[in-house]
Structure formats: C-alpha cells, structure tokens
C-alpha cells in the first residue's frame, strides 16, 4: 500500500498527465475541445474522460476491485472503441500509467521513501488494469457487432413474420 499512499498525494498531477496522454492521440483541434469545454453536454467525450480518470484512480489506488473498476474503465473505453483506433492505440493509455507514476514519484524515489521494487510491484498492478481493459474493450466491440445484427433483425422481423417464415411469440 505504501506506493499508493505516495501516489495519492500526487493524484491531481497524475490525473492531468494521464488526461494529456489519453488525448495525445487526437488532432490538436480535438485536444483543445476536449480540454477547454467544461459543460458535460457540450463536450461529452472530454467530460467523460476527465471524470472517469479521477474515479478510476481513486479505485485503482484504493480498493482496486475489478467489479468496480470495469464500469469506470467502460466510460473511457466505450468511447475509444468507436473512434476507429486500433485496439492497441485505444488502450495504450492504461500502460502509460507506469511511466507517469515513475515521473511523479521522482522525489520520493531519490529520497528513498519509495523503492524501485515498489515501482515494479505497481507496474504489475497496472498490467492487471490493462488485462481488465482488454475485457472491457472486447465487450464494447462485441456489443457493436451485436447491435448491427439486432438492427437488421428489427428491420426484417415483420416481413419474415408476414411471409410466415418465422412464427411470432
């Protein structure tokens, strides 16, 4: 828990850096939009990212329960899953947390309050978060294919029913 204790002290800085990393994949105009507009409805993506990041960090540096983290990760990943990114590009931000942690703990590491062993332990924890992100991402993509099929079914069900090719319930 020691390293989480130190990281929590830097939560604001970590959130900012993580948000920057998360949005670095977009064109500069898009980044400006995601960063500047605070109205939730005028900037749904930026707002979702900003709020979700803080919630994810709170849970990840606290209890770290998969069942709580999954819906929080979903807030970010559900958006990334429909932005034509490759899966690796969509999820790279999760692994970026390792470098951010090392960066913000520079002082603690140099003064011996945190060790490289602690960091390695933290990296493994981030990898766990990465694995959970794969599950969430895959779930979103599967949903995307499911809804395509559901839409086609909805558009043709009546026809098939009328042609007596299927029997309604």
């Amino acid at each position, binding site marked *: 828990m020691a390293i989480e204790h130190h990281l929590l002290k830097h939560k604001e800085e970590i959130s900012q850096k993580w948000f920057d990393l998360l949005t670095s994949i977009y064109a*500069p105009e898009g980044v400006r939009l995601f960063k500047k507009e605070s109205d939730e409805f005028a900037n749904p993506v930026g707002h979702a990212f900003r709020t979700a990041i803080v919630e994810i960090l709170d849970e990840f540096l606290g209890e770290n329960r998969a069942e709580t983290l999954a819906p929080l990760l979903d807030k970010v990943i559900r958006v990334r899953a429909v*932005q034509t990114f490759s899966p690796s590009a969509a999820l790279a931000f999760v692994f970026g947390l390792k470098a951010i942690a090392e960066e913000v703990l520079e002082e603690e590491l140099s003064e011996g309050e945190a060790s490289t062993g602690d960091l390695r332990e933290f990296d493994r924890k981030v990898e766990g978060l990465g694995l959970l992100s794969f599950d969430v991402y895959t779930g979103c993509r599967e949903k995307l294919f499911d809804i395509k099929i559901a839409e086609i079914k*909805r558009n043709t069900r009546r026809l098939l029913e009328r042609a007596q090719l299927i029997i309604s319930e």
Partner: protein
Amino acid sequence: MAKVPKPSELELQHELPKTEWMDTPSVFKPGNFSYPGKAKNLKVLGLANPREWSPNDQDWKLPADWKNIVLEGLRERIDKYRTLKVFMDICVRCGACADKCHFYLGSGDPKNMPVLRAELLRSVYRKEFTLAGKIMGSMVGARDLTEDVIKEWFMYFFQCTECRRCSLFCPYGIDTAEFTIIGRELLNLIGCNIDWVVGPAANCYQTGNHLGIQPHAFKDMLEFFVDEIEAVNGIRIEPSFNRKGAEFLFVTPSGDVFADPGTYTLMGYLMLFHEIGLDYTWSTYASEGGNFGFFTSHEMMKRLNSKMYAEAKRLGVKSIIGGECGHMWRVINQYMDTVNGPADFLEVPKSPITGTTFHNAASTKMIHIVEFTADLIKNGKLKLDASRNDHLKVTYHDSCNTARGMGFFDEPRYVLNSVCNNFYEMPANTIREQTFCCGSGSGLNNDEFMEMRMRGGLPRANAVRHVNEKFGVNTLSCICAIDRAVLPTLMNYWVPDVSVYGLHELVGNAMVMEGETERTTDLRGEPLPGMEDNENEDI
C-alpha cells in the same frame, strides 16, 4: 521476430500526423465510410457514371473530364443559389460553429468542424473563382481540385447528417448543411454517392417507397396491424387504399410499415383515425413520406416529392396529412412550395372534427399529424387515459428536421403531456432548436457505418443517459422514422435501459376507444400498469 513495443513507443506510433488539413489525406477504413451506390440504382435514377467501385480502391473510375464537370457544376450552382454564393464569401472563420457538430464532439476530427467541412469546398471555389485565390493559392486558403480532394469530399460530405445545429450558432446564419447538399450534388455529377441513399431513392422512384414494398405487400402489412390492434382492444379497423374522393390522403415513411418500433406508431395512426371517424385513404403508390432524393440532389428531391402531390391530385382528396417523419417535413416546409408548389388544386387543411383551419399549411396543403392530434386534444375530442403509460418514464428527442427545419417544438410536448404522466426534459442545450442529431440522418443509417453512427450519436445519448440516471427515464420518444430505426441501436450501445417509442404509439396506448374491450396490454403486448397479474394468469 517482431519486437514487442514499449508503451511509450505505442503512444508515439498512434499520434496523428500534425500536418495541416490540406496536406492530410483521407484514409478510408471499415466503419468510417458508407458503401458506394450500386450501378443498377444509379441507372434507375439516370445518375452519372454508373459502375462498380469502392472508396478503398486507388482508382475511383471517374469520368475522363471529371474536373471540368465538377467545376462547371459548381459554377452553375453558384449562379443559381444566392445562398451558396453568399456563404462562399462571408465566413470569417470565427469558429462559433466548430464545436457544435455531433460528429466533431464524438471524434475530435477537425474536418468534422462545420467551418472546416465548408472549407473543403470553399478552398476549391477560391482557387477557381477568385482572383486572390488564383494568384496567392494556399496563402489565402485556396487549392487545386484533385482526385484526393474528391475523396476528401466523399468522406466528409457523407459524414454530415445535414442536421443544421451548426447553423444555429453562426453569427452570419451560414447553413453548413447547404455545403453538404451542394457537395453531394457535385459528387453525384461524377457518380460518387452511397448506396444507402441511391438504393432507397431508386426504390421510391420505381415502386413508391424506399423499401421497394409493392402495393399488395403494403396493403397486406397494414391488414396485419389491423389484426394486432384487434387482439389488443377488440376493435376492428378497416383502412381504405387508393380510394378516390376521400377527404385526406395520409402519407407516412415506409419504415413504419415494416421496421419495429415504427410499426407500433403506425398502429397508433390507424387507431386515431378510426376513433375520430376521419375520411381518409392510404396510397400504395405514394407510399413514402421520406425523401432520400433530398440527399442526392435538389432535382431528385423534387422528383420524389412530386409523387405524393400527383397522387393527391389523382385521388381528388382535399388535403394531405403526413405521418411522423423527419426530412419529409424539411422538404415540405422549406422546399416544396418553390419546387413543386403551390398545390392550388388542394384546399387549405381543415380539421373536420374541430373545425380548425391550418393556415400554416396554406400553400403546401399538407399538415403534420402531430399538429392535427394536438388540435384534437386541445378541443377535447379524444378520451385519454394517460395512466396507461405509467410504466414509462418518458423524455423527448426533438428530431432535427422537425425542430430546426420547421420550428416544431411545442405541439409534440403538448401531446406527450396529455398522454403520459411522467415526462422529463433533457438538458436545455440538447433539446428544441439546440437538439443533438441521432447521428444517422441524411442517409447514413446503414450498418457498415456503425462506428461513426455511435460516435456521432454520443452527444444525444449522453443527454439521454443524464435523464436516465437522474429521473429513471426508460423511454425515448420521437417523431421521425429514421430516429425510430436508429435510436434503439444508439441506446443499445450507450444507454441500454432505454427503449424508443414514436409519439403516436403513446397516443395509441392512452386513447380510450369507443367500444373497446378491457385493455390489459400496450401495443407491444406488454402488461399495462396494474395488469401484470392478468399477464401471469394468461401464462
């Protein structure tokens, strides 16, 4: 063996090129474009350059003199449309429109900013039609028309739903949808269109509706709904088809004839007209309210729109009532009068039940069913039991075309508040004239475009999620057939607890009809509030 990249390398790899927009080519990937128009559909409509091709191909098989065709087409339209001529020059690039587009909000792609989308066309205009552009080129935002520019136009004019939210915020009143409309027209001159637009337009041209439903199948489906209504409330409705001398012709989108949940909305129409004893007829020829010609060219829009008026003339009706549709109303309200009107052979619509004359339709002679129903309710002509919709917590999506295209805000809300007890508005900057598009309008509601649709619909879904979490809203109502087709999919991805209903389905649920048997279910066969036990007994 490939080296596994470090996370920091991944970040670098996935950053977008920081090139200027003119130097950033369009990359077509599955999910970000719609399939091109099939040659057979282009032939039916008499459109240029029918061929098999794909946006993924290097060679788009454009006609040999494609550049000349496009530039002459642009010249002709600048001369013809004063708005276009003005819009070309007056934009000061203030950026007020930039963050108002749902596609831009969902993607962050700068070419989805309305100002930049218009620049795609303006840059060519400057180069070819202005002295400064000819001399100074890119320094004044001018560029040559190349095949890459055509590809960029195809990508981004088919990533705009013509919803016109951006135009609301422009201090000069520039309507970016007009750029998209003209951009698509120019692309059509060289055979670049999408099949989800030209397919329905060709069907409508040949058989009278987008889905290509033939007269006997159309009649058959409506009779099927008659059976379903009888099973719900014991009342047998007898609609008439192609009946000469009826007072009204009723025209609605064909999507409601086959696709759920629009089918339930159509049952609502049937029930309402039966209850008030309206003298009206359906037509199996003018069997489409929607107008996908509008997404092809002005000329095609005119052709498809004329069909319902020709049928009204043939049948000798007095006026036309139109169902819950989006772009049908944009065409009627903004274009019909000058392209096909005035419809002098018809009469100004007058409700035979209340005596109200709809002077707002003095020229088109066609009224929206929601204003017709609102008038019935206002005059106490319908017996309604709103508690039958108590299992639904309802919000309302203003369809872009009825809201921004015809200023239709209060009539649907009046009807909703009369037939439901639980109505909750979404936040103010997401409704009425500021409404967010469903993300799938203007012919983009195809399944290959699903990723774009989901990100374009995110701002709308985000507002629905807000009322879902705050008030427990489980119902999204709307008055547009494309909305009814696409919002269930959007909700399924972003807010799965919410179902989509047409307004007249809710009217059909609440309406207490003369001689009905005890109602235990709504039109979907779900038990009405307090009737859940009956349902169990049946099982």
